[in-house]
């Protein structure tokens, strides 16, 4: 053999294939001597992935936590006590809705 690349390739194949065989061998040939459950203060480990739909209260809490900074930002911008602030925000919002409806009508008549 004259090429270090070939040697590296042979070693890589040996390592990957041999490692796979060894891992499968060790994983499959269990003698089943002892099985220990995880001890979590006497309770079994809860699997959160089992429940398809999480409770509504959890979703609300998650949204509140996630959007907390955004909600605070918007609230301090709107609730200034000045009518003009509220009025200018509403104009921007109405303009955005108008543009969206125009785009919607133009793209999908």
């Amino acid at each position, binding site marked *: 053999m004259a090429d270090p690349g*070939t040697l590296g390739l042979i*070693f890589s194949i040996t*390592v990957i294939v*041999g*490692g796979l065989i060894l*891992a499968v061998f060790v994983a499959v040939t*269990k003698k089943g001597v002892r099985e*220990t459950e995880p001890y979590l203060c006497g309770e079994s*480990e809860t699997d959160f992935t089992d429940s398809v739909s999480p409770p509504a209260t959890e979703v609300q809490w998650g949204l509140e936590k996630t959007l907390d900074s955004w909600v605070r930002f918007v609230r301090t911008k709107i609730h200034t006590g000045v009518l003009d602030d509220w009025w200018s925000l509403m104009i921007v919002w109405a303009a955005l809705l108008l543009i969206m409806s125009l785009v919607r009508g133009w793209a999908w008549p």
Partner: protein
Amino acid sequence: MNSIEVLLYLFAVAVFPGFIFLSLLGTFTEWIERKVAARAQNRMGPTYVGPVGLFQPIADILKLLWAKELVVSKGFSWRTTLFLVSTGVMALSAATLLMPISPIRLSTPLDSLVLVYVLFYSTLGFLAIGFSSPSPFGVVGSSRMLSMICVVEPAAAISIYSISASFTGMDTASVSKAMIAEVGLQQLPALILGGVALFLVMMAKSLMKPFDIPEAETELAGGIIADVGGPLLGMFRILHDMEAAFLAMLLTLLVLRGPYPLSYADPLGWVLIGVKFVAVVLTATAISASLGRLRIEQGVALLGKYSLLVSIAALGAAALNYYVVV
């Protein structure tokens, strides 16, 4: 390769000097470590299984391999980790084929770099076991290991390359040819400097005492193996022991020149290899038993000074030998 060569290759990787031989040698190395450490701490060490407790590490590993896996958390992908640790074990098994004790010897120019590449799989196994763990101790252990790798792996690569280059030239640097080459006076500087660097690399990579920072029992509750049990811990023990045995064997054959002043044809030469191997392991264990664990920054600084810089000096010596003397 024809079919007989392929069969011989598979035999060498699986039995001698590969997986079975190297793992038995690794358990023997662990036994020496445990006995010497026990002696230093006024304990007896393993005594129960086999004569003077010689088979205790094997019994420990077999017990772990036969125990059922302790599933700590749903987030622990232990099968993937088992595969990565197994690749480390197979990498060390395959790397023994570069040694002169192997019945089939694969030798190419620049195979020292191939050896460095293959050795990295075992480090990857150590890393994977901590990073895949759901425990913060495991992650901290592996991140400490990453800090050490930044110094240890370059030191390992440079020292192996420069010792090989001092024997076979900078453009060839064949570690398998360097192990059987005649040693002369001009190789001594690179050999001694590279040997010192490689010795520290061996202690750091096999997590011996001043450098067992990633698994620090008292601070990190076992670090990279804090949450590991069953077959995965058994495979980790095999990998750990094989790493120590492989690097001690590399030091014996490459730096201490194997059967020198005898030859491989002489049966007494093989006895001499065994004596040198035990001497390397005993020296490392004596150092490790008489020192306390360093902090991570102390460990990295010490390895940088006495392993990385010394290995660069060895590279300089090899280059001087190649470009000026020869």
